[in-house]
């Protein structure tokens, strides 16, 4: 099974360890992983700002890079959702459609495609789960507090396979952290306040780490934690699922 690893631009630049962990994890689970070198970004920063009409070049580049793999896997719910919902390229619509259908966020790929039921990872820490909105409400990685539907969570199912881990949830289980892409600068005050409130609930739970499927939310919360000189750290789910502590 040939997997094209799609690494969000900010992960490539700021959090290479997340991409390394994703790659190693997929390889451990038997996938052939390639990283198309000419990839840049999914185009979400422009589209969420209202400029999807100028993201054609970016979309075309994406399609050129990811045609010819069986699956596209990405360690970000938000970027995955964007591709699924909005990847269109004039003249290459068939390829674009194929990619829209074969793109997966990492945790849903592990559960729905690889159907894994155990992991060798261990992570003996107390970990707070942050439910990133686009993964949850967009990709349905987990049930949502607003809906009257049976409860489930793909990321949590995976984390529960990790030895030694203690999971805990904030009181408002799935409130947004306030990152929101360019929202984080254009609506700086609300964004920062939302982040502070989210982080506080995890602090109250005395966690060692906050984890989630989206590094962008975690980057935002990390910025706040560091400013507050907090001991709490952030860690992407791929890094936990690939972790070995003895």
């Amino acid at each position, binding site marked *: 099974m040939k997997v094209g690893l799609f*690494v969000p631009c900010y992960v490539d630049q700021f959090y290479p360890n997340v991409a390394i962990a994703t790659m190693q994890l997929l390889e451990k689970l038997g996938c052939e992983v390639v990283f198309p070198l000419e990839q840049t970004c999914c185009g979400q920063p422009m589209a969420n700002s209202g400029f999807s009409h100028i993201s054609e070049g970016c979309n075309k580049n994406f399609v050129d890079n990811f045609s010819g793999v069986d699956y596209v896997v990405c360690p970000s719910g938000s970027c995955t959702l964007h591709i699924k919902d909005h990847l269109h390229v004039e003249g290459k619509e068939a390829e674009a459609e194929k990619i829209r259908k074969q793109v997966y966020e990492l945790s849903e790929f592990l559960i729905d495609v690889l159907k894994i039921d155990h992991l060798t990872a261990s992570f003996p820490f107390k970990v707070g789960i942050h439910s990133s909105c686009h993964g949850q409400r967009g990709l349905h990685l987990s049930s949502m507090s607003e809906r009257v539907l049976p409860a489930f969570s793909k990321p949590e199912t995976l984390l529960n396979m990790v030895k030694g881990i203690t999971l805990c949830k904030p009181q408002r289980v799935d409130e947004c952290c306030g990152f929101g892409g360019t929202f984080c600068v254009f609506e700086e005050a609300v964004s*920062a306040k939302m982040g502070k409130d989210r982080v506080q609930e995890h602090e109250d739970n005395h966690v060692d780490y906050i984890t989630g499927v989206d590094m962008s939310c975690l980057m935002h919360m990390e910025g706040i934690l560091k400013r507050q000189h907090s001991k709490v750290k952030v860690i992407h789910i791929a890094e936990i699922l690939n972790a070995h502590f003895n």
Partner: protein
Amino acid sequence: MQGTTTHSEKAAQFIANEPRTDWHDDTLWFVRTKRDRAAHTIEAWEGLRATASHIKEHTLSNLHDYLTQFEQNALANGVQVHWAADAAEHNAIVHSIIKKAGIDKIVKSKSMLTEECHLNEYLIQQGIDVVDTDLGERIVQFRHELPSHIVLPAIHLKKQDVSDTFHEHLGTEKDNIDPSYLTHAARLHLRDKFIASDVAITGVNFAIAETGGIVVCTNEGNADMGVHAARVHIACMGMEKMIPKAEHLGVFLRLLARSATGQPITTYSSHFHKPRKGAEMHIVIVDNGRSRQLGRADFRNSLKCIRCGACFNTCPVYRRSGGHSYHNAVAGPIGSILAPNIDMRKNADLPFASTLCGSCSNVCPVKIDIHDQLWKWRQVLMKEGYGGSGKNIMMKGMAFVLSHPRIYRMAGGMGRKVMRWMPWLFNNKSLNPWYKNREMPAPPKQSFREWYQQNKQ
């Protein structure tokens, strides 16, 4: 969206008082949790939402027929029906009815439509005094403010604020913040107004095509009080309030109050069908941009809204920025998709007052895809050039870099180096909004791409 009135600027002012922001957030979150509990008591909740959504979609697709059927039945019931193309016409019609009746003391129960049309201001200019009889509305009216929430108009005010307002306008004891003392004072005050007024204006929650009747939902019974004491009843409704049959009320009334406040049903669901003997009943049906919205394929289903306010209570941005930061009669997520239809330039900032978290669409009892419409409005507004030239240039630059992998790699590498060598450029609160409340991520020595090329190729 230029100038000093954007949502983000008003929100920053609101948040400057952090304890008050926390209080506002907690109060509305409490309402959201009550809504959750109420929804979970109904096993078929999601099915009920789907049914409500289908009924509304069907009605919107056949709106012309249902409106005409409604008018015929209302006329047959002895109701006078008026049609208003816009806010100005609505206000003029209401004014002419009042003038003809020769009355200048008016009571009005809650109606977001009359807020949208700025009816109060208009009537005051004509020398007519309107008294809002919904408690929350009366409080904001005393303070010359607008409602900050469509269901809880004075939710931005604390007990002390209400006490101060009543002390000033009703002569209650200074600093007495006991809610029952204050509501008792309001009750006495409003009772006089009910007795003295001969015209009662109400809103409309549901208009039933099959019967020509209307339903008004309140918790205070103030719509009934006003109408029963008055000689003339004027009901003002947006033309999207229509439902085909009376039996459909069973779907909507179950959803409305549970979504709004977590109550199983509003205390009063008042049905009005015809005028009493010797009295008059008027219904003013208002378009004011609704048919334009109906014509926009991507946004038409925003007209399904039953104004329950659930999307406000769940919205993490609304809870932390307050209703007034939306500078529109209807605030919150639904206001942000309705407002650009009325005035794109003035409201171009509102679809950006959201993280697109999607919680609004999940609570909406009529399943409006609110967060998707916010996204779509952004595309429309920026394409039409309401983003200003700065944003345009920035985005074009970004689009260029992201379509050219080599330039992207160079820019990324340079960015990380600049961050390491010149951290002051990034760690600067006025140049970089991110840095105001957050540290920048530490730039690693190597990008993933570089690691991959070194280790995997």
